[in-house]
């Protein structure tokens, strides 16, 4: 399992808020993140966890990946890390 605090930090940095202001229920749309901001966020997550995220702004639920809320991001990243780094 990943350390959830890493996701909170990455989202907070992209949204320009304090990590303590975030909960798992917070929606990216509530943070006023535009699609290009989410693309940058996904990039930061890929770099941090050394994973490939099959995310497309035009089809948010592609490949079973949903990035609508902080909690969904944590869930998706856990799944992708388990798939892509099974030994870890």
């Amino acid at each position, binding site marked *: 399992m990943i350390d959830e605090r890493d996701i909170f930090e990455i989202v907070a940095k992209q949204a320009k808020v304090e990590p303590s202001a975030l909960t798992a229920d917070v929606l990216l749309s509530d943070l006023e993140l*535009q*699609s*290009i901001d989410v*693309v940058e966020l*996904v*990039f930061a997550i890929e770099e941090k966890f050394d994973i*490939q995220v099959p*995310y*497309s*702004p*035009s*089809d948010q639920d592609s490949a079973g990946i949903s990035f609508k809320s902080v909690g969904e991001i944590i869930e998706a990243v856990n799944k992708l890390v388990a798939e892509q780094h099974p030994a870890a």
Partner: protein
Amino acid sequence: MNRVVITGMGIVSPLGNSADEMRDSLSKGASGIGPIQSVPHDGLIIKIGAEVKNYDPAAHFTDKQLGLMDRCAQLAVMASRQAVAQSGLNFRDGSGAKTATIIGAGVGGMQTLDESFHRIYAEGARRAHPLTVPKLMISAPMSHITMEHGITGPSFTVASACASSNHAIGVAYQMVRSGMVEAAVTGGTEAVFCFGSFKAWEALRVMAPDTCRPFSKGRAGMVLAEGAGIFVLENYDRAKARGAEILGEIIGFGMSSDAADIVLPSVSGAAAAIQACLDDAGLNPEDVDYINAHGTGTYANDATETKAIHAVFGETAKKIPVSSTKSMHGHGLGGAGAIELAATLVAMQGSFIPPTANYVEPDPACDLDYVPNIARQGAIKVAISNSFAFGGHNAVLAIKR
């Protein structure tokens, strides 16, 4: 004000390396999109593109020329040779001074830049090749066109990302219309197929993994293309006096800026450019027989462009065939507008309306007549061609048969 006609057209594109080949491909709805041949697939997520095929540089340029020319310049010069030959003009007879060369490009010599930086950063080379700078500069394709044909009038390159070609052709049109020059060689070029630029485009997450499906439900983005389209524009009276074959007439040009977002398109900005073009041409909505859409196949563009067409054409919008030929030749970036003007012209000549290929099913956000999958017989008298760029720069051309 002078009327401005097209007396030469050259095309080097994923749909063929001549106007005839392109007409044939478009009328069949044939695709120029496929697995990339020129970039190794290892390390790529997106492995498709629309490349220029059957082109051997050594068959068209000397070793010395090739040492000075990035692929984007080669394609532009190839297309310019076709266009100038068709026009029958010889610019070395004194007319070159009254001829402008205005060429659009989005990024310039990407392959040169990619190779040079790879050598220095990855291979530890201690020096770059001495011709790296004149090869990679974005204006080089235009420079080579002037030298190839001896065109000594005003010359510059226009860069406005994916609207570069339409801006270049539009400015050239205005220069001939105003009488500043008697003719212009204009159009655009792009050739970005190299590993570094593919990784950059992948990272934007706007590229389709399978194919380009503009305006269709299930569209997943754009497909990168390379190619060049070059035209000879000429003062109508002069062209007529010398008995030149007239391929079409440019009758209007409209521009606008969104002044809003570096990547997201805007309905009002796109609509303003289309309206400005109709106003410039003196056209009413019902006068337009065909719209060659920007139609990138991204979620955002296609819905926004549809709304913009509704905003300008009102009740008439649903009656006008709108197609994205990018579904077949991909997105040629700075060369896109020129490739699409060529597509529109050859369709006019062939009396058919090019289709939007790879169309699967309607998307509620895209509710116009997109001529799905199969070309339609029918004469086009007046068409407009849209280009909307990253940064919110919109440029629309109107042409008449």
